[in-house]
């Protein structure tokens, strides 16, 4: 079986690269889960501050999501190739 370097080869490899790029989804999953766990712990310690804790947690989650989004953008660019 010989490899022919034509346009379909490029498409196949870019789709493979898009799949490998989404391995970066592990990072935000672990980080945001950890942050949510700490937020739940803080609510358990002081239940009347739940409003501020939720707001702070949401802002923190939105920041931590960034690297996952970078991977998603790279995956979209590669799929479009």
């Amino acid at each position: 079986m010989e490899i022919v370097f034509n346009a379909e080869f490029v498409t196949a490899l870019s789709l493979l690269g898009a799949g490998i790029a989404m391995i970066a989804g592990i990072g935000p999953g672990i980080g945001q889960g950890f942050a949510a766990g700490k937020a739940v712990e803080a609510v358990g310690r002081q239940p009347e501050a739940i409003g501020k804790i939720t707001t702070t947690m949401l802002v923190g989650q939105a920041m931590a999501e960034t690297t996952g989004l970078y991977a998603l953008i790279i995956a979209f660019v590669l799929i479009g190739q």
Partner: protein
Amino acid sequence: MLDTVLDFWTNLTAALRASIIVTLALSIIVVILGKRVDRLNPEKPIKGPVFLVVMGIDLLNSFIEDFYGKKWRTFAPILLAFLLYLALANTASLFGLATPLSNVSIALAFSFMAFAVIQISGVIVRGPVKRIKDLSSPTPLLLPLNLLSEVSAPLAMGLRLFGNLLSGTVIGIVVFNLLNNVFGVLATTIVVHPIFNIGFGLIQAFVYFMLLLVFLSMSVEESEV
């Protein structure tokens, strides 16, 4: 004449058309509300939507004043402008428009605007010499790294908005096409659209506003000597 304008209008992409409509709508609403606030009588109590506007601006001003100290009046207008545009643009799909920020040029324009606002404010408020001294603040060896972080932080702000909005649009399209019947319509409008477009869109608008606030306050603060 009219058909060149119509030709131009229909040849733009959907996101650019939505952006122009959002900007126009926001300008008209803000001018009308501003004129109503102008005509208020300080003696009488306020009623109606003007009351909400005054309360909201008061809340925002006190929030910004916590970060900036004395000079908050210079910076509050542009921060509020960003917040209003982003809040209205990310929920534009409620009115049948495409979300403007799912287009990469608009998202990169936002990151360029953040970069320009931070740099120009830093140079005007601190003066060029002191600004360079701020950038090389612990040691001058860190100057390249500080410059790099000045570029990459606004870029990350713009790309965060783009990624969130684009993924919302793509997931909506995928879910709608996968279930080709009434369940597809229900799942898209009840589950995907409120969570991704409205929920994440408003959160990301708030995050952009907070990040711009913090970076701008860091670049114009007077260092305590």
